[in-house]
């Protein structure tokens, strides 16, 4: 299968309320031969305040924010079209699970393109290089050179890896360079640690991961915390009763130490470090290797295969104990859900709103992209879900000049965004106040750097002009 390498540069890191500004898509075959390369740029929406931190990392100029060739809506349609053309494929990149995929899904969701699971349906799979390079480095120090950070740990920042390994594709943090650097890194993993590469592809879809876990039962997995990749030899127990993740027992803990505990004793014991319960998220492209890998590392190597399998057997022989763990996890999840009752913005309801979209809404979404302004306006109130009507109005507000829109829609949306952007509270989006606060911090940081100060001044002028449009709404 082919690979679609992609990377976004955005106005900030809040996936629900920030927007993409630049994206690159590179299609390669399974031997990394480049078949197509697309670079897309779009203007900043008229209702988004950018994060200065993000802009300084991306090096996106005010000129680009104002004059890029595409509007955000056009960018999304174009991006969606290319992903469709390149399917089926592995959709891959560097930390795409944590950022780019989530960003892309919301781009589709908020722009009324109903197949927001495009990258993991119809034969598509999601693959992420970041967790795999961490494990590859753990198992083979020679896979790629890394810089060491202040604490003496390997730095897995793509920019650092590209620099120290002389990837030479250009300045990091432009989306095309990040894509090419990621491809370069993938070649290294495949060449030096082919077993890791192969294993990384076998869990690129939830269904495949589940099949693998069910087949292996006892296997090695890797987690990354406190700046280090760590190996676990796990026994699969069951799927989480609420979240459906694979719940496993870390076999370095002997189950006999837990079997005799009463229910509340078990609740406490499960929360104590080192935690015996490990979670494998099947849809996050986890690296799953045979137990032999883990048995080469401490403390599993000392425990030995026979003892490991005995412990696994003990769990199989105690279904009541396993059921108790299931109940504990269910109760904990329920109480967390009861606790998280804050109202959500429409932008935050991608997952909370359920995966089933009414057929009539789907049809209206399709029509919405095909018809002219008059047609679009007639569809706004036809959606059965309020969030879709809201997104339709957002697109109209962002895409069309005030003069072309009905006053009611323009005023409703303008006031809505004015209220958001002029808020003085700590919000889920960038406000004028948070922008100026960050600006002051950056000015202090770069007080000796004239060129940076000039760039900051440009962003300041841009946002000040923007603010004037909203201040008296």
């Amino acid at each position, binding site marked *: *299968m*082919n690979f679609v390498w992609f990377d976004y540069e955005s106005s900030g890191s809040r996936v629900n309320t920030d927007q993409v500004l630049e994206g690159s898509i590179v299609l390669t*075959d399974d031997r990394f*031969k480049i078949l197509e390369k697309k670079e897309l740029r779009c203007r900043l929406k008229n209702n988004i305040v950018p994060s200065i931190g993000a802009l300084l990392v991306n090096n996106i100029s005010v000129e680009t924010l104002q004059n890029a060739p595409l509007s955000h809506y056009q960018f999304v349609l174009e991006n969606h079209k290319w992903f469709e*053309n*390149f399917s*089926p494929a592995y959709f891959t990149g560097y930390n795409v699970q944590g950022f780019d995929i989530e960003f892309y899904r919301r781009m589709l969701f908020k722009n009324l393109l109903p197949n927001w699971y495009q990258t993991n349906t119809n034969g598509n799979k999601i693959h992420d290089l970041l967790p795999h390079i961490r494990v590859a480095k753990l198992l083979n120090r020679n896979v790629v050179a890394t810089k060491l950070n202040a604490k003496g740990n390997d730095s897995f920042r793509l920019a650092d890896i590209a620099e120290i390994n002389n990837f030479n594709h250009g300045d990091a943090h432009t989306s095309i360079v990040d894509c090419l650097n990621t491809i370069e890194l993938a070649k290294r993993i495949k060449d030096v640690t082919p077993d890791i590469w192969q294993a990384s592809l076998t869990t690129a879809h939830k269904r495949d991961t589940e099949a693998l876990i069910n087949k292996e039962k006892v296997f090695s997995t890797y987690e990354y915390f406190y700046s280090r990749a760590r190996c676990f030899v796990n026994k699969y127990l069951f799927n989480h009763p609420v979240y459906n993740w694979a719940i496993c027992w870390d076999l370095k803990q002997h189950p006999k130490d837990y079997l005799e505990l009463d229910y509340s004793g078990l609740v406490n014991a499960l929360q104590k470090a080192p935690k015996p319960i490990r979670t494998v998220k099947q849809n996050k492209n986890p690296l799953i290797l045979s137990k032999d890998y883990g048995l080469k590392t401490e403390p599993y190597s000392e425990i030995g295969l026979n003892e490991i399998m005995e412990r696994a057997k003990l769990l199989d022989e105690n279904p009541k104990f396993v059921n108790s763990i299931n109940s504990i996890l269910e109760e904990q999840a329920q109480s967390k859900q009861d606790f998280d009752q804050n109202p959500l913005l429409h932008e935050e309801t991608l997952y909370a709103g359920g995966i089933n979209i009414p057929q009539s809404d789907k049809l209206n979404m399709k029509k919405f992209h095909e018809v002219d302004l008059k047609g679009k306006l007639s569809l706004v109130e036809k959606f059965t879900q309020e969030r879709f009507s809201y997104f339709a109005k957002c697109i109209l507000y962002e895409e069309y000049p005030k003069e072309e829109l009905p006053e009611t829609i323009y005023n409703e949306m303008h006031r809505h965004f004015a209220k958001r952007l002029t808020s003085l509270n700590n919000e889920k989006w960038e406000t004028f106040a948070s922008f100026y606060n960050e600006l002051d911090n950056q000015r202090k940081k770069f007080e000796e750097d004239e060129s940076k100060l000039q760039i900051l001044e440009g962003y300041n002028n841009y946002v000040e002009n923007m603010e004037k449009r909203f201040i008296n709404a």
Partner: protein
Amino acid sequence: MAVRKYKPGSDKPYTVSRSRVQLFLDCKRCFYIQNRLGVKMPKMLPFKLNSLVDIKVKQSFDFAREKQEPHQYFKDNKYNLVPLKHEMIETWRENFQGLKYHHKESNLILQGAIDDCVQDLETKECSAVDYKSTQTENGDKVKYLGAPWHQSWKNQLSIYQYLLEKNELKISKNAFIVFCNAQLDDTEWDNKLNFDIQVIPYEVDIDWIEPTLLKIKELLETKHIPSYSEDTACDNCRNIKENNSLINSLIEKSLKYLKTGEAD
């Protein structure tokens, strides 16, 4: 139905066609059943219309071969390659004949019939050509050869290119698919099909072929039938497995009835 099968320990070279190599890659169990036990796989329905398109395209390549000029499809795609004139070309294009190569290490004869072969008259490099005809709404993206089933097309081209080289032709890194996609439109049927044609290059990978022949040989020599494929990748295996399990459960129920007189 019995088919030719491999005899373990035999000195006689055993022929594996490129489609059997693909069967080996797809499902070791089915490959073994066919090649070692001699049980033929279920036949596919003949695709007569597709075959007819192949014949017509072949004929049109023959005209270009006669004139030693690039076929129009290749001209349209700016490939200055002409259909190869070679005394063996007819044999190489004939089913059950085709290109052959005796791989001595495995003592297997690899065989594959090409649809055609084109040559760069300057460099003398040759490229295998395979015609594919179908009807799909997603014709535009076929050129990326990204769907899982396109892997067998890539393997096919790689084997052809390997065989051409082993038959002492200088080969290009690229082989080609001539993809004929019948167009579906709203106009009234006038007894004609129109095709959108794409010439799709593929940079072949022949490194896997010889190691695969050795693995095939190893499997043919083994006494144990491979287990059912773990996933549902092989339709034949899945079908047989499910049928067997159904039959087994019926037998068990019948035995129970005979023993106890109780029926579920």
